[in-house]
C-alpha cells in the first residue's frame, strides 16, 4: 500500500512530513526551493489559483481575492464569525449552514480553500517520493469540535487525500517529543498557533501517551496579536498623519490594501520583537511615510490580555485531570506564537518550570503527525496515543435542556447508548438534535446535526424502542447508529449537519476539483512551453545581433520567418503548436549555431587561448557552447 504522510494544516503555515525508514525519524518535506513551510494562503486570480508563497506575496496587491487564515472559518456558521468579518479583506457571504467566500468570480467554501493547500502539500510529497501519495494523517486543534473536524476531513477528500486519521495538534507534538526527549511522567503541551490555542495534559508511560485532559480556545492565536498591533498602528498613523490624511481625503480603515500592509507590518514587527528589544517600522503610504519605533514593552501591553485568556483553559484542564500545576513534570511549547517572550514567561510562571522548546515549534506538529502515520502504517509498534474528546456530547431534551451522553475528556474511541421512543400514536419518524458543549441549554451549545430516525413501524406512542448508539471514533468524529429493539431492524438515519457540507456537496466538490486539477495541469504545461519558447526566442535574437553578418540572405530570411511563426504561436493557447514552432526554429538555426561556433574557435585560436573564452570571467549567455 502507498505510504501515509503527516500533514499539519495550520492557520498561517502548513507542512508535510514523513518518517524516514532508514533513520526512523520524522522529517519535513521541503519544496523544490528548499522551503519547509507552505503559507496557508490561496489566491484566486484571473489566470488561475496560486497557493503558498506566491499567494502570500499578492496579499497586499489583491486583498479581496486572497484568502488567508481560512482555518478559523472551518466548520463554522455565519453567526460564529460575523463579528470578525470586518477584519477580513475577502468577502464572506451571509448564508445558512456552511460559509461561502466570494473570491475572484466564484464562490468557495472553507474546506475547498483548505483542499487547495492540502493538494499543494500532496504534490510536494509526490514530487519528493516520485510516486502518488493518497493517504494522510492531518492534525487539528485539540479543541476543534465535530463540525470542524469533519470539515477538515472533507477538505482532504476534495484534495484527493484519504484522511486516515485526524490527530490533535498538541498530542501530535508530544509524539514528536516522545520519540527521544520525554521521560516518564505528566506532560503539559501548551500550543499557541496562528489562530487557535490548546492545552493538553498527558501521562507518558511505557510508550503509552494517555491524554488526561484537554482544553482551549479555537479562536485565539497569533492572528489576534497581529490584529491588536495592527489596530494600535492604525490609530497611531491616523493620529500622527491626520493632516495628510484629511488633505487627501483618505480613510485608511476603509482601504483594504492599506489595512493589509498594516497587518503584514504588524506581523513582521511582532516577530522581530521576539528577539529584539525594539524595532522600527517604515511604511510608505500615498502622500507620506509613516516611521515609528516600537518597543517590546509596548507590544507586551497589547499581548498581555490575550495571554491571560490562555490561563483559564490551563487551569480548567488541570482541574479536569485532578492535578495541580506542581504535578506537571515537563512542559512542551508548540506553535509559532510561543516564540513571544511574554508567552514563555507566563507559562513558566503558571507551571513553575522551564518549558521544552528544542524542536522547532513550527514543525513539531507535522513531525508528530508523521509519527502517527508511521504507527498506523505498522512501522512503529511500541508507541500508542490515547486521546480524548474535548467537548461533552449530548442531545436536546424537553425544554431545550442538554442531556450529556459522553462527558468531555473521555478517552476515545468511546460510545454511549440511549433509548428513544415515539410520543404520538403511529409516529414513524423521530428527531434528535445532537450538540457539543459544556452548557446546560441547547441554545448555548454547539449544534452538530439533526438526525431523523425514519421507517419506524406505526405503533402506539411509547411502544417502539429505538436504541441509538453514539460513537466517537479515534478521530474525535461522531458516528450514529440506530436499531429498533423489537424488530432488530437498523433504523435509517438522515443527517443534517448544522454547519457542514452534505455528502452530496463533498461528492460534487471532489468531482469539480478533478476538473480544476486537469485544467490546472494544462495551464501549467502551457506556461512551461511558453517559457521554453521565450528562452529560444531570446537566444536567437541575441545570436542574430551578434552573428547575423555570417548568414546568407535566404538563410537569414528563413530564420526570421521561423521567429515570426513562433511569436505568433506563442500568444495562442495551443501548446502543441508552440512546441512545434519551437522545434522548427531550433532546426532553422542549426547552421547559424555551427557558424558561430566555428567563428568563435577560429577567433580564439587566432588571438586568445581557449580558457579565456570559457573561463569563469566570461559572460557568454550559453555555457554549453
Amino acid at each position, binding site marked *: *500500500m502507498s505510504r501515509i504522510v503527516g500533514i499539519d494544516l495550520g492557520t498561517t503555515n502548513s507542512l508535510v512530513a514523513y518518517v524516514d525508514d532508514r533513520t526512523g525519524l520524522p522529517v519535513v518535506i521541503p519544496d523544490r526551493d528548499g522551503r519547509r513551510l507552505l503559507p496557508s494562503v490561496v489566491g484566486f486570480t484571473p489566470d488561475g489559483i496560486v497557493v503558498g508563497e506566491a499567494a502570500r506575496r499578492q496579499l497586499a496587491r489583491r486583498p479581496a481575492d486572497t484568502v488567508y487564515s481560512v482555518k478559523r472559518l472551518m466548520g463554522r456558521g455565519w453567526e*460564529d464569525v460575523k463579528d470578525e468579518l470586518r477584519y477580513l479583506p475577502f468577502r464572506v457571504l451571509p448564508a445558512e449552514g456552511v460559509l461561502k467566500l466570494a473570491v475572484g468570480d466564484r464562490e468557495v467554501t472553507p474546506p475547498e480553500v483548505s483542499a487547495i493547500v492540502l493538494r499543494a502539500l500532496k504534490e510536494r510529497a509526490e514530487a519528493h517520493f516520485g510516486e502518488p501519495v493518497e493517504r494522510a494523517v492531518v492534525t487539528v486543534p485539540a*479543541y476543534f*469540535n465535530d463540525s470542524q473536524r469533519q470539515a477538515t476531513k472533507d477538505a482532504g477528500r476534495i484534495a484527493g487525500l484519504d484522511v*486516515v*486519521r485526524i490527530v490533535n495538534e498538541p498530542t501530535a507534538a508530544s509524539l514528536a517529543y516522545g520519540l527521544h526527549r520525554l521521560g516518564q511522567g505528566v506532560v503539559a503541551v501548551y500550543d499557541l498557533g496562528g489562530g487557535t490555542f490548546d492545552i493538553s495534559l498527558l501521562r507518558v*508511560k*511505557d510508550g*503509552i501517551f*494517555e491524554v488526561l485532559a484537554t*482544553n482551549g*480556545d*479555537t*479562536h485565539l492565536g497569533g492572528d489576534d496579536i497581529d490584529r491588536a498591533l495592527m489596530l494600535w498602528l492604525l490609530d497611531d498613523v491616523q493620529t500622527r498623519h491626520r493632516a495628510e490624511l484629511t488633505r487627501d481625503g483618505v480613510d485608511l480603515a476603509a482601504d483594504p490594501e492599506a489595512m493589509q500592509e498594516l497587518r503584514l507590518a504588524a506581523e513582521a514587527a511582532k516577530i522581530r520583537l521576539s528577539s529584539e528589544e525594539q524595532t522600527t517600522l517604515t511604511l510608505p503610504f500615498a502622500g507620506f511615510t509613516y516611521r515609528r519605533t516600537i518597543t517590546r514593552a509596548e507590544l507586551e501591553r497589547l499581548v498581555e490580555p490575550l495571554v491571560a*485568556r490562555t490561563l*483559564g*483553559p490551563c*487551569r*480548567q484542564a488541570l482541574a479536569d485531570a485532578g492535578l495541580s500545576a506542581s504535578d506537571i513534570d515537563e512542559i512542551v511549547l508548540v506553535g509559532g506564537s510561543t516564540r513571544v517572550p511574554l508567552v514563555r514567561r507566563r507559562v513558566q510562571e503558571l507551571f513553575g518550570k522551564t518549558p521544552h522548546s528544542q524542536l522547532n515549534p513550527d514543525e513539531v506538529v507535522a513531525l508528530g503527525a508523521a509519527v*502517527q502515520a508511521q*504507527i*498506523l*502504517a*505498522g512501522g512503529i*509498534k511500541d508507541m*500508542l*496515543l*490515547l486521546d480524548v474528546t474535548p*467537548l461533552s456530547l449530548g442531545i436536546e431534551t424537553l425544554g431545550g435542556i442538554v*442531556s*450529556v*451522553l*459522553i*462527558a468531555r475528556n*473521555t*478517552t*476515545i*474511541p*468511546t*460510545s*454511549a*447508548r*440511549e*433509548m428513544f421512543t415515539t410520543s404520538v400514536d403511529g409516529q414513524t419518524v423521530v428527531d434528535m438534535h445532537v450538540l*457539543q*458543549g*459544556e*452548557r446546560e441549554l441547547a441554545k448555548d451549545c*454547539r449544534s452538530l446535526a439533526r438526525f431523523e430516525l425514519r421507517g419506524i413501524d406505526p405503533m402506539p406512542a411509547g411502544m417502539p424502542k429505538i436504541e441509538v448508539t453514539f*460513537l466517537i*471514533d*479515534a478521530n474525535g468524529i461522531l458516528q450514529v447508529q440506530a436499531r429498533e429493539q423489537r424488530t432488530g431492524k437498523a433504523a435509517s438515519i438522515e443527517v443534517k449537519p448544522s454547519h457542514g457540507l452534505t455528502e452530496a456537496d463533498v461528492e460534487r466538490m471532489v468531482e469539480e476539483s478533478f476538473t480544476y486539477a486537469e485544467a490546472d495541469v494544462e495551464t501549467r504545461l502551457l506556461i512551461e512551453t511558453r517559457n521554453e519558447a521565450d528562452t529560444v526566442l531570446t537566444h536567437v535574437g541575441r545570436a542574430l545581433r551578434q552573428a547575423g553578418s555570417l548568414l546568407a540572405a535566404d538563410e537569414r530570411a528563413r530564420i526570421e520567418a521561423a521567429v515570426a511563426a513562433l511569436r505568433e504561436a506563442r500568444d495562442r493557447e495551443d501548446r502543441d503548436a508552440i512546441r512545434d514552432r519551437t522545434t522548427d526554429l531550433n532546426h532553422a538555426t542549426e547552421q547559424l549555431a555551427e557558424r558561430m561556433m566555428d567563428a568563435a574557435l577560429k577567433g580564439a585560436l587566432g588571438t586568445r587561448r581557449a580558457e579565456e573564452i570559457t573561463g569563469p570571467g566570461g559572460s557568454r549567455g550559453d555555457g554549453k557552447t
Partner: protein
Amino acid sequence: MSDFFSVFGLERRLAIDVAALQRRFYELSRRWHPDFHHAAPPDEQARVLEESARVNAAYRALRDPLARVEYLIRLEEGRETKEGAAVKPKAPPQLLAEMFEIQEALEEARAGALDDATRASLTAQREALRARMAETEARVAGPLSQAWDAAAAGQRPAALAALKEALATRAYLRTVIDDLGAVLDGMEEERDVAHRRD
C-alpha cells in the same frame, strides 16, 4: 453483556488496585486500539472499534473510586446501558433542612445584598461544606465501599443504599458549594470563559 469489572478480569468488588488496573488498561489498549488494526478488513475494524470503546468506558468507570461506586449502583440496579447517566441526586431531607439558612442567605445575596459580614459568613460556610464534602467522599471510597465488599448477599441492598445516600449527599453539597461560588466569586462567569467555543 459482561460488566466492566470483567473487562479487566476483576470480581465485582469496590477495592481495586489502581496501579494494576492502569497496567491492564494499557495492555488492553495495545490489544484493541484501532491504530494497531488499521490494515484490517472493515468488519474486523468495526469489532476493534467497539472493543476499544468498551475498554475505555470500563477504565473510566473503574479508575476513580467515586465513579466506580456510581457504576456499581447502576450495575446493581440493572441500569448499565445508560453509561452516561449519573446517579440522580435525592438529598436526604435532614440535609435540606440544615441548608435552609444558607439557601436563604444565597437568595438575598443574589438579589444584590452582599455586605462584607454576609460575605465573610458565606465564605466560612463554604469552607465548612467543602470539608464536609471531602469527608463524605472519603467515607464513600473508604468504609462504605469496604462494607459493600464485605457484605454477604443478604446485606448488600443495605450497603448499596448507604452508598447511594452518601453519593446523594455529596451531589447536593456540591450544588450548594457551586451556588456559593457563583455568588462569592462569580465562578459561573469564569467557567463560561474557560469553555468558550464562540
